[in-house]
């Protein structure tokens, strides 16, 4: 006898244990060898043959047969029978007529879809024969194919559930009554009832999915079917079941090779080899299952909600249609009956947009990224904020669906940005900053305007011709409560009190004529009495050298001298009485030179020190404080006046120059045309030359003329004509772009305290 050699494939199958000194090994003597199981040895020999299939598949019946006979017959004739797939089924084309249209997307499927649509039982030829004869012999209502399938399926399902080991004794099959009883309760979770449960839960009837056939089949409920046809079909079913040895009547695919007694062990669905089980793997998989369950639960909830939403939407659309039709009807009736009710119900109300967003095209362009960020953080992961905003918006009411005008509204694109990239801090956008600034400025101005109105309270504008008010004004010794608003008050003149004011009744006439009003034409109001004698004021901005203004009485300046000495200079707007140098000069005549120098230096220093400081008070210059010139009231400095008038004059001069040049050219053109008509071409050329010369000359002339004009125009205000004066005042306010131009007109518009 040969000891079994463990080599080759067999060697890989049996784990070789290491021989250790600690373990006892059995010692077999030759006499004992015959006791070893012969079969065992034989099997080991057989297994040495390389079969080419997996170890657990070597039990295959046919393979075993071949292996056993391998020594007897030649192996070339023996083979494992396979199901015959060589024949072509001619009728296939007859049944598979449907044309498959490729969808745009990939076909995705995780399980056999047909399992979820319709009945799982499919009739075969035997069933067909039975049903045909049954329907012929039966005088009752016909049992349709679908109904038959339904009955068979239910039988099958119940039996496999209740009698899983029917194979052992098929004759033990349950009687019909028991099956009937069992089928009364509907299993909601079972596959074939999915559509029914779904339709119940969603309250959608009929529940048709995309997988369902388009022709709806009306299957009577199973209980009724059983009552009507149960006995006959049951007998048929029982017969088939016993014939099939208790296995499923309907052939099913073999998915798992769990059944060891299965002869065709090789022909089964392959499976990945199971991993070795450990406790961790177990807990892991159970955790995974729990997670998956929760996932599916949440998803189911969401999909159900979506379904509900869509249903509601459908309903809403239907109602809208109804509304539309009703409106049409009502309108027609209304017209016929001549009813004039309110048409409120007849018009589709569009929700007004809450606030139209202010148009800010450039700003949006500037910073789209920031906006996007902002938008996303709002739609982001933060559940809490979402809740808040949700509760906020639910009060806003429903969104009007019907509005078609909203289509023009641009949609802000949803932008993907991982929340990790969004910084936690609140980003201050430039746009917002600018807006804030603008807002605050506006607010400030509004406030000021309000305060100004308050200070203006009780004052009325008396003048009807705003251009010729001349007042005799004196300063009131009034205590101003809040001096800060004076610059914004239209009546900084409220400090002045008017004693008398002159008024020319028909001033436009004088302006037209360009003459001065007579003394007698002017009314002078003073102390509520009208006197007729008054000389109109006249003012020449160019030639009166010392214009008395009501400039600020002092300008103050902070000056830091040596050692951090701080000086506050007061500079009066009036000339400082100058006597220092005179004094010194007087002194200089008498005293020594040294002393002179010293005193001079001292004086200089003193002078320097007080150069910008004047002790002249208000009282000292009271007499010349306020000029009678109306345009000077609002403390516009002399310089400003000069600039304004200068600018005005310049523009005026330019205008006149241009005008004269244009006129001249026009006349030239006319002349040229006339000449063209009159003279011949040669002459024309000559004349053109002449004309060109003349043009050059004229240009010079016109320049001179315009200069003269400008001189003239500048001289015009010389004449004490109020009309021109008025004109210039007006223009001055136009020329100067400074904000004070408005204050100039305010001066002209001077308001007088209402006395009555």
């Amino acid at each position, binding site marked *: 006898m040969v000891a079994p050699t463990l080599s080759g494939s067999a060697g890989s199958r049996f784990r070789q244990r290491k021989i250790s000194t600690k373990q006892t090994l059995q010692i077999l003597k030759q006499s004992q060898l015959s006791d070893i199981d012969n079969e065992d040895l034989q099997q080991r020999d057989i297994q040495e043959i390389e079969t080419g299939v997996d170890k657990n598949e070597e039990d295959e019946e046919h393979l075993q047969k071949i292996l056993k006979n391998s020594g007897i017959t030649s192996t070339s004739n023996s083979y494992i029978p396979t199901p015959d797939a060589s024949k072509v089924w001619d009728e296939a084309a007859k049944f598979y007529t449907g044309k498959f249209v490729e969808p745009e997307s990939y076909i995705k499927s995780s399980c056999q879809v047909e399992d979820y649509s319709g009945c799982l039982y499919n009739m075969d030829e035997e069933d067909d024969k039975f049903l045909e004869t049954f329907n012929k012999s039966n005088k009752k209502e016909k049992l349709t194919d679908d109904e038959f399938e339904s009955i068979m399926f239910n039988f099958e399902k119940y039996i496999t559930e209740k009698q899983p080991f029917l194979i052992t004794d098929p004759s033990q099959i349950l009687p019909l009554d028991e099956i009937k009883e069992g089928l009364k309760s509907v299993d909601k979770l079972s596959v074939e009832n999915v559509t029914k449960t779904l339709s119940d839960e969603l309250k959608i009837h009929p529940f048709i999915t995309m997988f369902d056939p388009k022709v709806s089949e009306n299957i009577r409920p199973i209980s009724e079917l059983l009552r009507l046809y149960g006995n006959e079909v049951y007998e048929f079913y029982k017969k088939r079941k016993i014939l099939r040895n208790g296995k499923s009547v309907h052939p099913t695919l073999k998915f798992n090779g769990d059944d060891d007694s299965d002869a065709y062990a090789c022909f089964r669905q392959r499976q990945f080899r199971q991993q070795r089980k450990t406790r961790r793997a177990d807990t892991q998989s159970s955790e995974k299952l729990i997670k998956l369950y929760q*996932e599916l639960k949440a998803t189911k909830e969401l999909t159900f909600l979506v379904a509900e939403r869509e249903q509601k939407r459908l309903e809403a659309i239907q109602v809208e249609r109804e*509304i539309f039709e*009703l409106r049409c*009807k009502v309108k027609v009736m209304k017209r016929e009956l001549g009813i004039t009710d309110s048409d409120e119900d007849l018009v589709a109300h569009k929700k007004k947009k809450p606030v139209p967003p202010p148009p800010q095209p450039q700003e949006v362009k500037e910073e789209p990224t920031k906006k996007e960020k902002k938008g996303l953080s709002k739609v982001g992961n933060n559940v809490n904020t979402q809740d808040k*905003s*949700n509760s906020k*918006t639910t009060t806003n009411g429903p*969104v009007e669906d019907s509005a078609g005008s909203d289509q023009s509204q641009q949609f802000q694109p949803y932008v993907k940005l991982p929340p990790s990239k969004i910084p936690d801090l609140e980003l201050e956008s430039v746009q917002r900053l600018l807006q804030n600034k603008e807002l605050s400025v506006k607010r400030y101005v509004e406030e000021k305007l309000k305060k100004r109105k308050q200070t203006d309270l009780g004052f009325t504008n008396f003048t009807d011709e705003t251009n010729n008010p001349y007042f005799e004004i004196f300063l009131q010794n009034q205590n101003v409560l809040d001096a800060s608003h004076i610059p914004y008050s239209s009546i900084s003149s409220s400090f002045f009190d008017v004693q008398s004011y002159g008024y020319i009744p028909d001033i436009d006439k004088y302006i037209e004529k360009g003459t001065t009003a007579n003394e007698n034409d002017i009314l002078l109001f003073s102390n509520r009495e009208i006197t007729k004698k008054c000389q109109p004021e006249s003012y020449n901005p160019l030639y009166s050298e010392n214009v008395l203004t009501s400039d600020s009485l002092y300008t103050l300046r902070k000056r830091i001298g040596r050692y951090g000495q701080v000086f506050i200079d007061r500079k009066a707007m009036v000339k400082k009485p100058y006597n220092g140098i005179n004094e010194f000069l007087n002194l200089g005549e008498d005293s020594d030179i040294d002393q002179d120098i010293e005193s001079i230096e001292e004086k200089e220093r003193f002078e320097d020190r007080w150069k910008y400081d004047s002790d002249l008070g208000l009282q000292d210059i009271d007499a010349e404080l306020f000029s009678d010139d109306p345009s000077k009231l609002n403390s516009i400095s002399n310089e400003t006046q000069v600039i304004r008038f200068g600018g005005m004059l310049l523009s005026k001069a330019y205008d006149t120059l241009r005008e004269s040049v244009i006129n001249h050219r026009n006349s030239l053109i006319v002349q040229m045309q006339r000449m063209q008509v009159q003279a011949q071409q040669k002459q024309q050329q000559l004349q053109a030359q002449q004309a060109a010369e003349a043009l050059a000359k004229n240009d010079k002339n016109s320049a001179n003329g315009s200069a003269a004009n400008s001189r003239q125009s500048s001289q015009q205000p010389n004449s004490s004509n109020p009309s021109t004066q008025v004109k210039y005042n007006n223009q001055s306010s136009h020329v100067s772009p400074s904000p004070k131009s408005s204050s100039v007109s305010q001066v002209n518009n001077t308001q007088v305290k209402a006395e009555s």
Partner: protein
Amino acid sequence: MSQSESLKEYETLKKQLQDAILRKKTLDKEITQIEENIFQKETIYLSESNNSNIVRGFETSNKQGSHNSSFGSVNKKKLIFTDDDRVFSLSSHTFVRHLQKKNDLEDEQDDISNESTPNTAQSNKKRRRDD
């Protein structure tokens, strides 16, 4: 006679119309409520699911499981979901519009209350620091 009859008919029609309008209004309200509800639940679902959900597929969860077995890396990455993943709530056109309106409104409100918010944020931070 016919006049009064048609008048009656008119009245009934009008009443029907009013009913329908009312129904429409309540329906719209319900729809928006459902939409809000979906949005909320979806947010919770998407933020809780670790990048493996019904929208993105469950492959990553498998991988992560294997990672976890070799000493867990639970907080490996912050999980992200975008508007693309919101297949449930954003499958409604009206809701998209609704959201947009809301955002616009909030923008305005933010602009108004802008001055006060940074202060509170700062104070919050301070408090945190104090803690």
